[in-house]
């Protein structure tokens, strides 16, 4: 009898233990994001969205709960992070959501990681109706969307107005500069001449600086010389020898007239920032997120103060009458092709709404992904620079979402190094770069001439 009672008690206890988890279903989604102080809410907004969803489940009397397992990596940049992500995916550790730089989408699709989001976007059209249309280009691969823009930015040429004034330029000239660029009257060569004039007059120590390493910024300068680096129809990268020679020729011209330091490619990031923010350089091309640091460095207090000191222009056209260019390099949410992809996509949709995205955008100086965000009080109060930058997006180029864009950029950058340091002529550099592109990228690149 005692033995039977013991058995019954054991069975009941075992039943209680084993049935409890069955009643409440917990769905765990793995979220991959690099630990990035410049954008903690990229992952944070997904976690908040999961909390919101759990409250909805609770209100509906459902026991289902969504748990976010945040995989926060310590990769040095988005490229290193994407390579780590691909390695994790290749050993079966595929996250449900990943925060990534958009140009990796091609690699993610080819590796079988990224889910096609067209059905999700179509089914939830209202949640995406206000997204700035140009930003969708950044998540396209072979005609379909494989990501949702998480933030955007605009890269441009910053000009120090005080240096122009010191160099003898009138207020009319300074105020008319953006319009002259948009009209195609002020060219890339004029930009270098202006930098040289600032140096020769003693108003600046350096004409202008660009990024000191491989990166997307150079694409807008290449685009200004008519180089379209992606063939949409063939889904391949492409290059023209004549365009490349012209682009390298322009860099050589800038080094030659003293506006661009010959050792620019061996600068550190600190020296590059210090050159412009320290008032030594007349111009710099980089991204809108620099505004915060510029306000601090120049001791500026607000919008009027800022635009009295600095002017923004697109990358001017290569030739007179051409179109100016700039670049946006959005970070995106990618949904993994996992059994939880529908739920993961829904969380991404929730995190992409105006309020959570504005919290990220204003806090980190990124332009919004939805048009309506610029009307929100947070943007009106603290995001004047972002509101000003948003119209520039209509001239925005994006890096192609091709698996080998990183290699392409690295190889074209070797030409920049060779020309600026005086090691090669623009013609030789173009020749060398095209040979390297053919050798390393093979069928993935089309040589147009």
């Amino acid at each position, binding site marked *: 009898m005692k033995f039977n009672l013991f058995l019954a008690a054991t069975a009941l206890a075992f039943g209680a233990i084993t049935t409890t988890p069955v009643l409440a279903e917990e769905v765990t989604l793995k979220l991959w994001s690099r630990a990035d102080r410049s954008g903690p809410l990229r992952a944070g907004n997904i976690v908040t969205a999961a909390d919101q969803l759990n409250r909805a489940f609770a209100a509906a009397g459902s026991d289902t709960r969504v748990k976010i397992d945040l995989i926060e990596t310590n*990769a*040095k*940049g988005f*490229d*290193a992070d*994407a*390579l780590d992500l*691909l*390695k994790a*995916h*290749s*050993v079966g550790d595929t996250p449900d959501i990943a925060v990534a730089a958009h140009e990796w989408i091609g*690699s993610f699709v080819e*590796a079988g990681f990224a889910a096609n989001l067209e059905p999700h976007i179509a089914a939830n059209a209202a949640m995406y109706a206000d997204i700035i249309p140009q930003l969708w280009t950044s998540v396209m691969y072979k005609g379909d969307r494989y990501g949702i823009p998480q933030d955007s930015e605009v890269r441009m040429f910053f000009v120090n107005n005080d240096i122009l004034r010191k160099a003898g330029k009138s207020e009319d000239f300074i105020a008319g500069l953006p319009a002259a660029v948009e009209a195609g009257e002020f060219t890339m060569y004029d930009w270098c001449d202006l930098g040289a004039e600032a140096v020769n007059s003693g108003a600046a120590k350096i004409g202008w600086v660009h990024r*000191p*390493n*491989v*990166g997307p910024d150079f694409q807008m300068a290449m685009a200004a010389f008519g180089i379209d680096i992606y063939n949409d129809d063939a889904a391949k990268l492409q290059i023209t020898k004549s365009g490349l020679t012209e682009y390298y020729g322009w860099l050589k011209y800038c080094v030659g007239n003293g506006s661009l330091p*010959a*050792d620019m*490619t*061996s600068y*550190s990031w600190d*020296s590059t920032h210090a050159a412009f923010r320290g008032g030594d350089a007349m111009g710099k091309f980089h991204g809108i997120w620099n505004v915060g640091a510029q306000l601090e460095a120049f001791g500026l207090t607000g919008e009027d103060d800022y635009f009295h000191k600095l002017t923004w222009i697109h990358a001017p056209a290569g030739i007179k009458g051409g179109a100016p260019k700039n670049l946006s390099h959005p970070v995106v949410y990618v949904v993994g092709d996992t059994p939880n992809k529908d739920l993961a996509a829904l969380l991404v949709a929730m995190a992409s709404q105006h309020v959570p995205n504005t919290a990220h955008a204003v806090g980190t100086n990124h332009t919004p992904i939805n048009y309506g965000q610029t009307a929100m009080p947070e943007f009106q109060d603290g995001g004047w620079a972002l509101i000003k930058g948003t119209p520039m997006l209509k001239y925005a180029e994006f890096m192609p979402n091709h*698996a080998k864009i*990183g*290699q*392409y*950029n*690295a*190889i074209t*950058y*070797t030409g920049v*190094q*060779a020309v600026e*340091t005086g*090691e090669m002529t623009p013609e030789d550099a173009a020749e*060398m770069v095209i*040979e*390297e592109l053919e*050798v*390393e990228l*093979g069928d993935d690149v089309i040589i147009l001439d």
Partner: protein
Amino acid sequence: MSRPTNLITRGAGAPPPPVMTQASRQTTNALVFLGPACVFLLCLLVIPIFVDLVVAFTDMSQTVRIDGFTTKQFEKLAKPSPEALLGFELRGSFYRALSLSAVYVVCTLAIFNISFALILALTTTALPDWLGGLYRAIWLLPRMSPSVVYGLLWLWTIDPTGRGLLNQVLAVAGLDPVNPKLDAPLTVIVVANGFIGASIGMLILTSAIRSIPQHLFYAARADGAGSLSIVRHIVLPALRWPLSYITVFQSLALLVSFEYIFLIMGPARQTMTMAMLAYTKTLAPGIGSGQYAYGAAITLILIVIGMAVALILWRLSNMKRLLTRPRIEVQ
């Protein structure tokens, strides 16, 4: 000289003690003393070389997947050319990396790792002990500093602006500022690596000089030999083996080193040696990396070159004699 296997005479009727033959004792000793080293060599040397060999003949890239075996990574380094002596021609970037590696290794080795190390060893052993020790400690500082700190110090030293230490010194001397990273990039990496490499050579050579019996110096002095004669006829002959060892070891170490090159010069074309090329194509973030098979192919060639260099230097310096058994046995 052989020894009896069992020196204990057993008493009649006593149980036989456990017998350990010389052979089994040697096996045990070998396992205990050489086992860990063998495992270490296998895991960190043999297996990586084997993995590198396999990966070099695949198309492994960003996803770390192998879809098939191919020789296309090597086609990126050389192309067939009927006119060439060996039937192939090296591609531009690879030829350049090979040349830069040769110049970098030979210059660093000859100027710093051997010559400068020898000068340091000779001068610091000629000084009073405390002063020589102080100089050696100072020269060991770069070796003891973390790589990143050493790299940053170099960056600050050669900064092309007025903030750079070198330019501050030149300004005091009334000279124009210089920009070594632009005008002499190879010199920068040779000197930066040389300062580190010289310290190891200095230690080995100092120890070798110290082990020369003092009576030889006294005898030489008694015979009227000057300092230079003593160096030439007593010290240098005694340094033959240490110098041979330093040459072989350091040339191999320099061939595969890229740490300081990357920290100081970044992925600059002017200092893109073989090891740097392999690193930038595989692991260096943000500069077109993720081409694991391509990097493995470059590394495989580097391994082959390293083996060839080691064998040639082994032969030239007659290292075999250094490692042969002594002809007399000291008990």
